[in-house]
C-alpha cells in the first residue's frame, strides 16, 4: 500500500490523537513470539517498529540491549527478519512497518540489496540510528527510489541550522529524540521544554509528521499527546523482560500495556 505511513498519521489526526508507534526487537524472545506480540498489539498501534538486533549497540539503554541479546541468543538473522516482516504484512496489510537498526547490519548485507529486500518484504520505513545527516544523503535517496521512507532523527543537541537542513532532506516522517540519553532512560527535560523543541521543528515545516521518542512511558505519554506521534520502545521491552522473568506470557502482558498506553492518548 502506497504512502501507508502518511495514511497512518492522517487516521490518527482525524481521531484527534497522536499516532502510537511501538518498538520491539524482532526475534525477542523468539522469532514466533515476536510476531505474535506484534500481531496482538497491532490493533492499538498506528505504526509498528521492529528493531534489528546488533551486538554492539552504542545508543541503546539496558532494556533494548536485553531484548536484542535474547533475540540474538535465539538465532535471529537478517533473512529471518525479512521473512517475519512479510508474514506480518500478510496478517496486517495496512499497518506500516518500520525497521530500525545500526548501519553495520545494513553495510554488511549491502545497501542496495538491503533496501531491495526491504521493499520486497513490505517494509515501509527505515531508521538507521548511527547513519546521521549528512552522511545518510545517498542512502536516503536510495530509499526514496524504492518508496521507503527514510526517517531522519533530530536530537536536543541538533542546532537550528542543522534542523533546517535535516528537514529539507527528510521524507514524510521525522523522529525527534526527546532528551539527551540512550533509549529508555527517564526524561531529563520538562515536558514544556520537549514540546518547545517539537514546535521548533513543526514551525519550519508543518506538513512533516514529527514523532517523539525516548523516555515515553505510561507516566509521560499523555502529557505529550499534542505530538503527531509517540514512540514507546523500552517500556515494552521491559515488559517482555518482566514477563519472561515471572514466567508469564509476554503476548498477554504487552497487549495489556499497549492498550493502556493507547487509552492515555485517546
Amino acid at each position, binding site marked *: 500500500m502506497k504512502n501507508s505511513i502518511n495514511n497512518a498519521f492522517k487516521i490518527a489526526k482525524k481521531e484527534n490523537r497522536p499516532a502510537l508507534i511501538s518498538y520491539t526487537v524482532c526475534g525477542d524472545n523468539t522469532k514466533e513470539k515476536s510476531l505474535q506480540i506484534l500481531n496482538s498489539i497491532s490493533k492499538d498501534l498506528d505504526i509498528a517498529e521492529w528493531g534489528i538486533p546488533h551486538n554492539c549497540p552504542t545508543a541503546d539503554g539496558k532494556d533494548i540491549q536485553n531484548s536484542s541479546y535474547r533475540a540474538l541468543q535465539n538465532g535471529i538473522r537478517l533473512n529471518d527478519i525479512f521473512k517475519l516482516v512479510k508474514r506480518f504484512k500478510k496478517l496486517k496489510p495496512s499497518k506500516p512497518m518500520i525497521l530500525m537498526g545500526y548501519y553495520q547490519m545494513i*553495510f554488511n548485507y549491502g545497501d542496495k540489496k538491503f533496501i531491495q529486500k526491504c521493499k520486497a518484504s513490505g517494509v515501509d520505513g527505515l531508521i538507521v540510528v548511527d547513519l546521521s545527516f549528512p*552522511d545518510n544523503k545517498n542512502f536516503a535517496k536510495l530509499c526514496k527510489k524504492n518508496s521507503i521512507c527514510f526517517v531522519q532523527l533530530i536530537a536536543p543537541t541538533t542546532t537550528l541550522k542543522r534542523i533546517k537542513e535535516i528537514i529539507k532532506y527528510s521524507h514524510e516522517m521525522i523522529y525527534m529524540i526527546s532528551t539527551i540519553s540512550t533509549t529508555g532512560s527517564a526524561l531529563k527535560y520538562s515536558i514544556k521544554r520537549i514540546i518547545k523543541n517539537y514546535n521548533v521543528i513543526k514551525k519550519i515545516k508543518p506538513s512533516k509528521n514529527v514523532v517523539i521518542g525516548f523516555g515515553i512511558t505510561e507516566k509521560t505519554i499523555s502529557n505529550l499527546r499534542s505530538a503527531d506521534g509517540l514512540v514507546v520502545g523500552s517500556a515494552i521491552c521491559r515488559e517482555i523482560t518482566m514477563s519472561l522473568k515471572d514466567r508469564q506470557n509476554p503476548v498477554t502482558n504487552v497487549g495489556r500495556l499497549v492498550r493502556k498506553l493507547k487509552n492515555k492518548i485517546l
Partner: protein
Amino acid sequence: MIKLKKKTPLIDQHDKFGFYGNKFGGNYCAETMRKPIEDLSKLFEKLRKDRKFLKKRDHYFKHYLGGETPFFKLENLTRHLGGAQIWCKDVSAINGDAHKAYHATVNALICKESGKRYIAGDTGAGMFGKNLAMAAKKMNLKCKIFMGTKDISRQAPNVKFIRDAGAEVVPVDSGSKTLVDAVSECMRHYVSNCDNTHLAVGSAIGCNIFLKICAWSTSQISRELKKQLIKEFGEIPKLKLINVIGGGSSALGFWNEFIDYDKKHVELVGVEAKYAAPLSTNAKVAILHGAAQYCLTNKEGQIADTHSLSAGLDYPGSSPLHGLLKDTGRARYTNASDKEALAAFKLITKLEDIRPSLEPAHAWSECIRLAPKLKKSDVLVVNNCGKGYKDKKIYIEQLGYYPK
C-alpha cells in the same frame, strides 16, 4: 590502490566526512553526538595550533610524565639472536607506565579547555584508565572509567590505581565483558551526558575526532625517537619499527614521524594478537564504535568474539588509520599467539633488564622471529609500550615465575 599524501600528517588525510582513503573511519554515531563531536573537532583544531596550549602540553609531558623516554640497544639479545641490532624505545619508563599516558593527559587538558567538568574513558588493560584517572585528579576533573568485568579481574593492579586516584570504575558485564563492551558502554554514557562530559576514547578508534586526538597525542614517541636515532646513528638508518597493535594507539605514535620515509628505508611492522587480528587475517571492513575499519565479524555482520591473554589486545576492531596504512602498503601486519608472546617475555627478561607487559611482548616475539634473518647493519626498534607489573599474576600462572 589508495595512496598516502606526502607531507600531510597521517591524521589529517581524511575527507570532509572523516573518511580515510574513501573507506575507513567516518562518523557513524547517533544524532545526539553530532554537535558535541563537531564542537570538540573545532576546539581540537584550534588548540593544536595554539602556542600556549602546545607549551602547556609540553610542560605536562616533561614535568608530569617525566620527559623523554629512553632509547637503548639490547646488547645481550642482539648477541643471542645473532642478526640485526635490536634497540628498545622504552615508552614504559614514562610516569604512567605506558604510552596511554600521553593521550590521557592530552584528553584531560582538552576537557579542561572545553569547560566540561566530567571526563569518561574506556579501558581494557587498565593503562588508559589509570592514566586518565591520574590526569583527571591532577586537573581536578571528575572521572569515570568503563571496564569489562573480565578485565577488572585480570588487570586488578591497574583497577586499584584507578580507584586510588579517585576515579569511579564502572564495571561492564555485557557481551564478552572486555574492551569492546567497555567502549560501547562508555559511548552510551557519552550519548546520555554529552552536555557536561568529555569523552576520552582510549584507542585510535571511534568517530574521526577521537582517533585524531589519540594519534596526535601519542606521536610524541616518534618525535623523540627521531632525535634519538639521529643522535645515535648520525642519520635515520635502515630501520624496522615493530609495534604491537590492539586499538592502534601506540603504533601510530611510534610511526607517525616516519610515514613519509620509503618503506625500504623505514619499514613499519604491526603485530596483533593471533585471535584478535583483523589486520593480519584479512578481516572484512565493518562499522564498529562509530568508524569503518577492518574488524572481526561473523557472517551476519555481528561483531565477533576475540581471544587474547592480553586485555589490551582483546578487541575485534582496529584503528581506521591502520586500515589506511595496510591498504596503502605502508605498514605490514602480522600476529603472535599467547604462547609466542609468553616465550618472548621469558627470553627478554632472562637476557635484559626490561619487563614488558603482555601487549609489547607480542612485538618482542616478532622481533625475535625477524632478527636472526637480518644483517648486522639492520636496525630493529621495538616500542616497549607497557610495564609488566600489571600482568604479574598472569605471567606467574603461565610461566611459574615473574622475574625480579
